[in-house]
């Protein structure tokens, strides 16, 4: 019974943190699909979203729901600024300048937030206080919220991309920009929308995980590293893969930490990454490179 409770507790923590990796990985993937570049500031979107939440909730003193909406809207607007400031001017220069540009943006964001909010981490309270106690297992309410919101986001994402005109236009843009342009789809606008959405998604992850990990300058980098591994494990640029990859890493590292060794916790994600790259280089859901061409 005790062992069962422990396993369940470990699984729960793993799924919850995995959901956060998945949300950030999803942001990675959407931008990869739209622009063919990895956005190294994706983790900082989460950090920035969490700080916006802190600003609205604690510094301004707005109610939780309003702060939440404002933080997400704020992140959406930020995504637009990011698109025109970081990506757009370099869009014809190949992928390397854009990657370096996103790296620069990441450093800029971290230090700007440091200058504004100071270095002391901030505390955010759970959306709903407390948690659920089932025998020896404690389900933190925030982890439950994270799991629920992730599921809703995955469903929303599916509906949006498969069943709306805008979603289909976005898909067309990511598949073949020239063809999309010929069909009259405004490609630049579609990419801008992708940045807005990815930024809000990253911000959402940050707002959700803030009460668990506390809000700090470095919070995004740690999440982004795992989310990036999740992106590759799932299949580079695959939406399903990002979600499954994120959950997979969360659960594997949680169990491996419990059963094998805690100090090597961060290594397991990358061990998985190596194994996947050796035995299934295209990732869980990725197409073989030859097929893609």
């Amino acid at each position, binding site marked *: 019974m005790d062992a069962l409770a422990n396993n369940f507790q*470990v699984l729960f923590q793993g799924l919850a*943190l995995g959901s956060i990796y998945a949300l950030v990985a999803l942001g990675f993937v959407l931008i990869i699909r739209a622009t063919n570049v990895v956005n190294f500031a994706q983790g900082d979107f989460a950090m920035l979203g969490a700080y916006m939440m802190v600003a609205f909730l604690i510094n301004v003193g707005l109610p939780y729901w309003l702060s939440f909406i404002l933080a997400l809207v704020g992140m959406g607007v930020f995504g637009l600024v990011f698109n025109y400031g970081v990506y757009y001017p370099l869009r014809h220069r190949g992928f390397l300048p854009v990657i370096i540009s996103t790296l620069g943006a990441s450093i800029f964001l971290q230090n700007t937030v440091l200058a504004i909010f100071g270095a002391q981490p901030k505390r955010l309270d759970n959306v709903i206080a407390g948690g659920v106690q089932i025998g020896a297992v*404690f389900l933190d309410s925030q982890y439950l919220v994270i799991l629920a919101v992730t599921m809703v986001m995955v469903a929303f994402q599916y509906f949006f991309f498969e069943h709306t005109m805008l979603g289909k236009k976005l898909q067309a843009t990511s598949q073949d920009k020239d063809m999309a342009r010929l069909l009259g789809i405004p490609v630049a606008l579609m990419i801008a929308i992708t940045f807005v959405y990815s930024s809000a998604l990253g911000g959402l992850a940050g707002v959700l995980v803030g009460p668990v*990990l*506390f809000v700090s300058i470095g919070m995004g980098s740690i999440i982004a590293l795992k989310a990036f591994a999740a992106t590759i494990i799932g299949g580079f640029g695959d939406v399903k893969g990002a979600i499954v990859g994120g959950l997979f890493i969360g659960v594997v590292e949680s169990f491996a*930490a*419990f059963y094998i060794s805690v*100090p090597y916790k961060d290594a397991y994600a990358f061990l998985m990454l190596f194994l996947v790259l050796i035995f299934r280089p295209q990732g869980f859901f990725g197409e073989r490179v030859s097929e893609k061409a």
Partner: protein
Amino acid sequence: MRVSFWSALSAGAIASLFAFSAAADSIRIGLVSEITGPNAEAGAYTINGAKLAVEEINKKGGILGKQVELVVEDNQSTNPGTVLAFSKLGGNKDIPAIIGPIRSTQVQAASPTIKKAGVPVMIGGTDPSLTHVDNPWVFRCRPNDTYSSRVIADYGVKNLKLKKWAIVHSTDAFGAGGQKALTDALKNLGIEPVLIQGYTNNSQDFTPVVLAIKKSGADVIGTYITNSQDVGIFAKQLRQLGVSATWIGSPSIVTDTAMKLAGDALHGTYGIADFNPDANPAAKAYAAAYRAKYNLDPDIYSSWAFDAMNVIAQAINSGKSEKSDDIRKAILGLKNWKGVEGDYNFDSNGDGLRGYNIVKNDGGKVKFVEHINFDK
């Protein structure tokens, strides 16, 4: 137009020359601290402490009649950054002494660079080995972890009468050193810990650690946790999963940050603190001055730097020389020098202090319990 530009430039150059010669009349002391990176918060407090000392020294007329100037170098919260900062400051002949970082791992990384520079460096890192690597230039302004662990073990075993120990430690130099010292200290009291559990800094989830403690049935937890944020996450999860064991932690447990983040999850825990505002008269005066200047409560990141700066000033004054060699000799010659962290007597290794305060988190307020001091 062009002429006036050049004349302006040369006028500026001359002005800066004068500024330089004015600066040469001051004593420049280096400070390697964390201005950027994940530990920037602690770094800011360290700079606060050193600056307050400089301000007080200058108000009293400076050292040997010269004003003190603090030269702060960022180490980016990383080991390579620390080495770089020390090469830069150590290579500057105008800087006779440096205040180093509080992180053991950074001191360890920079130790060869410090030795090469041949400049006294005051450190805050508490890993015992840092002063035992045949480096005559490293001086510690905080008690090392042999003492912290002896105080933790002593207080837990003798005062609280607790025998089933779990040790949780970071795997960095500070945590691993502390773990080893605490295990030894317990062994000397006849106790074998029921669990020794490591974790890496910036862990996002302490569930496996907490479950291991639960399984071990420990009634007291001794911790060496490096980052305040990790203290916060661990404390929350520990209490959520229903572990109510007594907790005696290394100094990070009573940092302002940890207590703000963890809230009531840390109530009732014990900590050791080399600095406590109520421990002695010097500490009381310092705390009042710090609060007045920064409107913040002083903590361990700032107090040792305040002492470090004052030890350097005292050594230059008593040796009547600002040469690195003489400063080193004068530091070793200090006897019962009263700082805010306690009475300094530097041994040949460079360790200045041998005692700690036991404090308790009483409903979110840190209360001074007692000062435990060892002669050796």
